[in-house]
């Protein structure tokens, strides 16, 4: 059971990290990145080739290039790739297109990426995907289970760091400008906001965070294939952001917990109903119905975006825990 | 027209009548206990500071907001909280303050939607009539309204509502953005003519002086309540009100003497 708990914890943490990245793009800046899962995949593949070693060392698997570097270099490389990819995709799709077109073009871009990877076996081992990806922290000597909990703990720390970065961005004047871009692009421009730059910035930061989520995930699972990042997976994350509460970090985390954790993984625990053959189908149906119910009772999310009030007297209200987390992060 | 006589008649024949209407947006009510009315063939003006609740009031009449207290009557029919569509079918035409046009549709199509309740043939004929009434619109009949200038949009909005020849016409700041001559023309030609033809007109205006000049009755709404309810001419004469609500002098420079 404990094994399973570690998996649940990991998936939820990874889901939360990914959802925060998406929230920055979609919740704050209003960029409809329907290719989001592509960035997760980019991070996963990057970490994979940065840990698998030279392709010749993995006889049956084909990939274009590979090396083996220690933690945390692969994760950092993934983030860099995610950020660069974000800027590239942003340059193509965000500069001239209007919101709903951006969304659909992104959807198509995501599909193109899946096709490209699947069709080129020599690139990233095609449809089969990459497997036997080494886990990080090779030097840590722990029992199997403790190692897994250690991995969970590291991921939790990373999640806290991401939270801190997100909180700083969304709570700052920059975050306000992002929301202004979301609300009224023309007005933001008239006030001197470089909208293109703000969007690209969001694409880069969000892309890096998505890639980080992918990097962590791939090392935890040890495998990655195109079946794991088809475009509907993006919808799952959008559902998490909207069910939890777009523009509210806590809400988004809760949404990721609900959608990624409870609805998606929790239904794995559903008792076998009459015909076990139906379990798979019933899980998905349950998830659909749950999303609808949540949206019905909380149309703006379980924890909607907060109205930002400005205290007459300035006072810091950062909880102690986070202050410590920040200090740790810096130290 | 003496005040008492008018009020006495109002009880009986007032075409559109609000009795103690209270409404808002979910929080505390924005308008409270509002009683106003307008007869056929008359023009009533509602003025007041920004945020007083004028638009809220007309939205409540039009079934776009829930009326939580009081009632709205059209002739002898209670139309409180009727659906917007039914209210339109009862013959109330409405130009909202914002989002007053269909931006994706052309000028002509806006008129056609305005005449949705008419037969196709009648609608066509009426649209042609309106294009004659507003010559600038005729030149842009096949342009999308989203591309028009602020004033041109307003013309379309007013043109659209006139398609049906409604028995009650509610205009929420129809002159915002209109040039001075057009404002005058709207008040003195179109609105007056409609009233003379038997329409009851409820006019919400910031250009209160100009509006009151053509109106029969005036209401001044402050913080969601009717503060003043008097014949238009009397309000124009009141120095105190002029100062506070109508923007000081009642003779604003440069308006009347442009005409010739």
């Amino acid at each position, binding site marked *: *059971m404990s094994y399973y708990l570690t998996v649940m914890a990991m998936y939820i943490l990874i889901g939360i990290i990914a959802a925060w990245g998406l929230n920055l793009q979609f919740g704050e800046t209003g960029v409809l990145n329907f290719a989001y899962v592509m960035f997760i995949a980019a991070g996963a593949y990057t970490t994979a080739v940065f840990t698998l070693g030279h392709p010749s060392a993995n006889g*049956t698997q084909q990939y274009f290039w590979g090396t083996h570097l220690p933690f945390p270099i692969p994760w950092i490389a993934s983030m860099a790739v995610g950020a660069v990819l974000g800027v590239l995709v942003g340059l193509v799709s965000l500069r001239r297109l209007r919101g709903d077109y951006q969304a659909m073009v992104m959807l198509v871009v995501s599909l193109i990426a899946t096709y490209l990877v699947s069709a080129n076996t020599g690139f990233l081992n095609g449809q089969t995907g990459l497997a036997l990806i080494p886990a990080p922290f090779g030097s840590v000597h722990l029992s199997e289970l403790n190692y897994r909990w250690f991995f969970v703990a590291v991921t939790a720390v990373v999640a806290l760091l991401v939270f801190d970065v997100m909180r700083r961005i969304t709570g700052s004047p920059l975050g306000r400008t992002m929301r202004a871009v979301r609300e009224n692009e023309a007005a933001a421009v008239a006030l001197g906001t470089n909208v293109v730059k703000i969007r690209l910035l969001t694409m880069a930061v969000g892309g890096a965070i998505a890639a980080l989520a992918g990097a962590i995930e791939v090392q935890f*699972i040890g*495998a990655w294939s195109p079946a794991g990042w088809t475009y509907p997976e993006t919808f799952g994350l959008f559902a998490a952001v909207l069910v939890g509460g777009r523009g509210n970090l806590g809400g988004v985390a809760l949404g990721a917990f609900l959608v990624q954790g409870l609805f998606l993984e929790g239904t794995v625990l559903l008792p076998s109903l009459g015909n*076990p053959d139906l379990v798979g189908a019933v899980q998905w149906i349950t998830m659909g119905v749950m999303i609808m119910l949540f949206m019905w009772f909380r149309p703006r999310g379980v924890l909607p975006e907060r109205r930002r009030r400005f205290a007459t007297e300035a006072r810091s209200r950062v909880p102690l825990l986070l202050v410590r987390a920040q200090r740790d992060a810096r130290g | 027209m003496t005040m008492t006589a008018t009020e006495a008649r109002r009880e009986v024949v007032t075409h559109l009548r609000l009795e103690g209407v209270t409404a808002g947006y979910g929080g505390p009510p924005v308008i409270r206990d509002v009683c106003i009315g307008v007869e056929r063939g008359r023009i009533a003006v509602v003025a007041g500071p920004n945020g007083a609740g004028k638009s809220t009031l007309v939205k409540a009449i039009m079934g776009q907001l829930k009326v939580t207290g009081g009632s709205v009557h059209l002739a002898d029919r209670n139309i409180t909280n009727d659906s917007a569509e039914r209210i339109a079918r009862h013959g109330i035409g409405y130009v909202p303050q914002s989002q007053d046009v269909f931006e994706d549709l052309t000028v002509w199509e806006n008129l056609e939607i305005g005449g949705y309740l008419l037969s196709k043939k009648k609608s066509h004929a009426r649209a042609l009539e309106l294009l004659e009434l507003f010559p600038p619109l005729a030149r842009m009949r096949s342009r999308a309204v989203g591309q028009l200038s602020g004033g041109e949009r307003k013309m379309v909005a007013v043109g659209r509502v006139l398609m049906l020849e409604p028995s009650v016409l509610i205009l929420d700041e129809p002159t915002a953005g209109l040039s001075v001559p057009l404002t005058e023309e709207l008040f003195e030609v179109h609105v007056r003519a409609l009233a003379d033809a038997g329409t009851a007109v409820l006019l919400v205006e910031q250009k209160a002086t100009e509006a009151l000049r053509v109106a029969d009755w005036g209401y001044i709404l402050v913080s969601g309540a009717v503060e003043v309810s008097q014949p238009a001419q009397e309000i124009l004469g009141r120095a105190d009100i002029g100062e506070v609500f109508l923007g000081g002098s009642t003779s604003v420079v440069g308006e009347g003497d442009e005409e010739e």
Partner: protein
Amino acid sequence: LPGASASTAHASGSTLNIVSFVPFSGPDASFGDLALSGCYPAVYAVNSAGGAMGHKLACTTSDTRGDPVDAVPAANALVAHSSNVVAVFGPSSDEALSTESLLEKAKLPTFLMAGLSQYDYQTNPYYWRLTPADAAEGVAMAAWAKGHGYTRAAAVFATGTTSQGDGPASINGFKALGGKIVANVSLTPGQPSYNTEVSQVVNAHPQVIFFTAPADTSATFFAELHQLDNGVIPPTLVTEVAEEPGWITAVSGAIGLPTLEKQFAAMEAATPPTTIPGWSAFHKSLYASPTKVPNVSQYVDDPFTLSYYDAGILVALAIDQTRSTSPAVFDSAILGLATPGAGKVVVHTYAAGAAALAKGKKIAFIGASGNLYINKHHNVAGAFAAVSEGTNPHRIALVSATLMAKAAA
């Protein structure tokens, strides 16, 4: 009853589960039915004979959804709840590699559905593969074509995990045997049409086609081949995909049953005729079992179904023989139970096997698939048959072992 005194972690009479760990949703959702259609009759056969060592067996499922991201937590859940599990049916090629390290930890007899070549020489004592590898099948195709004197072949494979095994094997095998691949075409499933691919094949004038693709893709492809080649379809060899439910219906819907019967042959693990006693017993259980997969009749001659039925019975017999429900103990008995030998009583049903064991006899179980010939890598030999539908329902083994060896060289 046998095993009443055995020391085991399981309370006497508690239910033992066989988990089908394969996709039940997603594009490969049909794998789930393959595993279950073997599990249900096996469990029924065991339970109606009193259960394995008195324990009832049951079939449970764990949905991998066909991708690693979902399979890993499912594998973890399986490991976590493994106390009542005695065998795993699966994983498939979709998730085998990514869940390998986890499943190894479970130390449960695991009956692979994956045809991946990675498992051809595997040494994990708990891993078993009772259906031949993909590559073997590819080789068999080449050998069959060669045996029929064909020299020009077109290889048409859908992109996907299995075709990464079958495709190269058939192509290399055919070349090794002196044949020529005149067209090598891959199909991306889910396209509205494949007319370019079809044209390539038509223009290359092959004598024979090596083919694998899911049912719906195949239907589209052959409908268009039929159309563009003026109703002519060259002799076509299909992998075991043809045995998956609906494949035959799909293609016969597209080109007509007569053409299908005349021109197509499906490769499959060579199984003896359905008249063998093991198969009859399976067949009876399949229909007698109160739980069934939908459209169960599609599975009566599916090699996966048959091998999973056999696996279920073998596990139960191993429990009986070792008088232990602990996999660490009974797993090692499976190989012996599946291999006939001197002094062993050959049985074809669970009931007969249990009774013989109770009498203290040594037994060998020959079930629905006939003799499996499991080798030391827990793989089966992989003699193949090319099977045709229609008028000739009996199976004709056409691939000789010598030819196969030559092609594999």
